């Protein structure tokens, strides 16, 4: 047999130790022990590259954007608008007009609720969400439904924490004007069949909004392939700064929507009789924006792309499988959320021990996890638990850290006898 003379394109093995060296915080100690940070689904840590980019902007380029003719203002504007284009490329939006900077996922969803839904919907119209949603994708719809008399419907989940797709489809009707769904459940890690959800919404003439907060660090999200109408996410889950996020919106929709907040930057002209609005995307960015945040987000996207999102996802998936198997070996552990497709999140309970006690004992061992309702109280109610403990993994998580989690959980069992 002839040997294949073409050299195989062998991907570099994923070097998690090299990745860890980029994250200064990972070398610190907590309560005299090495930090084991397993709470990246709440907020990921930032690499030196992001810290440096923000630092450089603050030290050398800061001024207000879109205003001055002076050099610094122009530099700041270039940095800010350059970051917008970096985001556009990362999510494959058609144009920077479709990239609105927000404070985070929550603000993006509220923007759509208060601008699009409030001006377009009324009594008899329905907004359909899923039972897996974070409060950020429930409460803005409750608020707007209260204001306009529309109805909020909820598609149910099964005992694995998966959307029951038939029941979801059965709830779609000509009354459905918007489907708002998470791409990945923050409380359980379930990856929702988002493309099918979007297509089903469109088939029924409804728009689709995606809460992408938990998906953006774990998977390549392509706006043109996904065909969502709105997609909201935060930088701080993607190794970027807090206080900055992005709302992607289809240009024609954004164009037709009224402004949400009024102020500087979002106007073209103001008189006491009437004001006119700026072009997209600035129409939705009233007030001085978070420039250093945008710069940090762009740096985070550079960082993630350099590592390779696919390589990160494969690394995390390996950890998820390893941790799931290891946790199952601990007597009394029940994993909450056993969907076939999950992101790097494990929610669990330990028989006879409240998650809050687990969290405190793990913390004393240096292991940081999230305990509580994860801003998803309806999910907790569905599984009839007051709270869960949740470990989540990121590009810098190691198998050794999973082992530390398991050892600390055995310590919990020891304390509680």
């Amino acid at each position: 047999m002839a040997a294949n003379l073409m050299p195989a394109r062998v991907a570099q093995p994923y070097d998690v130790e090299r990745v860890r060296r980029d994250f200064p915080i990972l070398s610190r100690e907590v309560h005299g022990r090495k930090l084991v940070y397993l709470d990246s689904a709440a907020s990921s840590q930032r690499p030196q590259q992001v810290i440096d980019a923000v630092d450089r902007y603050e030290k050398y380029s800061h001024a207000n954007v879109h205003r001055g003719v002076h050099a610094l203002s122009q530099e700041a504007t270039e940095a800010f608008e350059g970051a917008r284009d970096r985001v556009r490329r990362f999510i494959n939006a058609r144009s920077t007009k479709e990239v609105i900077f927000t404070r985070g996922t929550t603000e993006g969803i509220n923007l759509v609720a208060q601008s699009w839904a409030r001006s377009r919907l009324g009594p008899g119209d329905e907004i359909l969400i899923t039972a897996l949603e974070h409060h950020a994708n429930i409460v803005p719809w409750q608020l707007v439904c209260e204001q306009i008399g529309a109805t909020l419907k909820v598609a149910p989940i099964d005992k694995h924490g998966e959307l029951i797709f038939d029941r979801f489809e059965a709830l779609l009707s000509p009354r459905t004007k918007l489907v708002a769904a998470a791409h990945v459940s923050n409380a359980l890690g379930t990856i929702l069949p988002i493309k099918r959800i979007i297509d089903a919404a469109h088939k029924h003439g409804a728009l689709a909004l995606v809460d992408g907060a938990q998906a953006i660090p774990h998977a390549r999200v392509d706006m043109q392939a996904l065909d969502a109408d709105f997609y909201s996410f935060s930088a701080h889950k993607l190794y970027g700064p807090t206080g900055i996020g992005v709302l992607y919106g289809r240009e024609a929709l954004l164009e037709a929507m009224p402004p949400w907040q009024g102020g500087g930057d979002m106007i073209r002209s103001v008189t006491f009789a009437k004001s006119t609005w700026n072009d997209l995307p600035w129409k939705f960015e009233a007030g001085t924006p978070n420039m250093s945040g945008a710069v940090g987000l762009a740096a985070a996207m550079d960082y993630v792309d350099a590592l390779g999102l696919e390589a990160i996802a494969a690394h995390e998936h390996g950890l998820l499988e390893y941790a799931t198997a290891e946790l199952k070996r601990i007597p009394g552990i029940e994993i909450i959320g056993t969907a076939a497709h999950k992101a790097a999140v494990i929610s669990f309970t330990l028989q006879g021990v409240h998650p809050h006690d687990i969290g405190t004992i793990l913390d004393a061992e240096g292991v940081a996890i999230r305990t509580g309702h994860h801003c998803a109280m309806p999910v907790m109610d569905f599984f009839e638990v007051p709270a869960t403990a949740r470990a989540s993994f990121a590009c810098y998580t190691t198998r050794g850290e999973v082992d530390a989690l398991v050892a600390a959980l055995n310590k919990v069992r020891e304390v509680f006898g």
Partner: protein
Amino acid sequence: MELKDLYRDVILDHNKRPRNFGLIEHPDARADGHNPLCGDRLTLSIKLNGDRVEDVRFEGKGCAISTASASMMTEAIKGKDRAAIDELFHKVHTLLTDQAAVPSPDLGKLAALSGVREFPARVKCASLCWHTLNAALEQSDAAAPATVSTE
């Protein structure tokens, strides 16, 4: 901070076998407490004789600290009048928040809660039952049942 200061044997014991657990039928005072941060919920029901607590029971779901604290509280307040309870509340509050406080000798078992102050995130767990008790007693003259939240 030492875990064994937080999870003392008496606390683990009251968590495992909570005393006065349940509801009193036709109580003279009743209140629900809720700690949204950790999802802890408890209901206190009280039988009064004048302003003296004749009987008290609690029901709910919570962490070891909140369960043990509620259990020990019910034991501690039975038979006490409002003034004595207020005094006890003040001493427990000091114990939970003042790093330098030396447990008052009349705290009895409640002194086991002194380890909680090393764990600021857990102080609310221990104090939830006391705030709920306050709400129940204040409401005992009023008509509507009370709800307190530690957020």
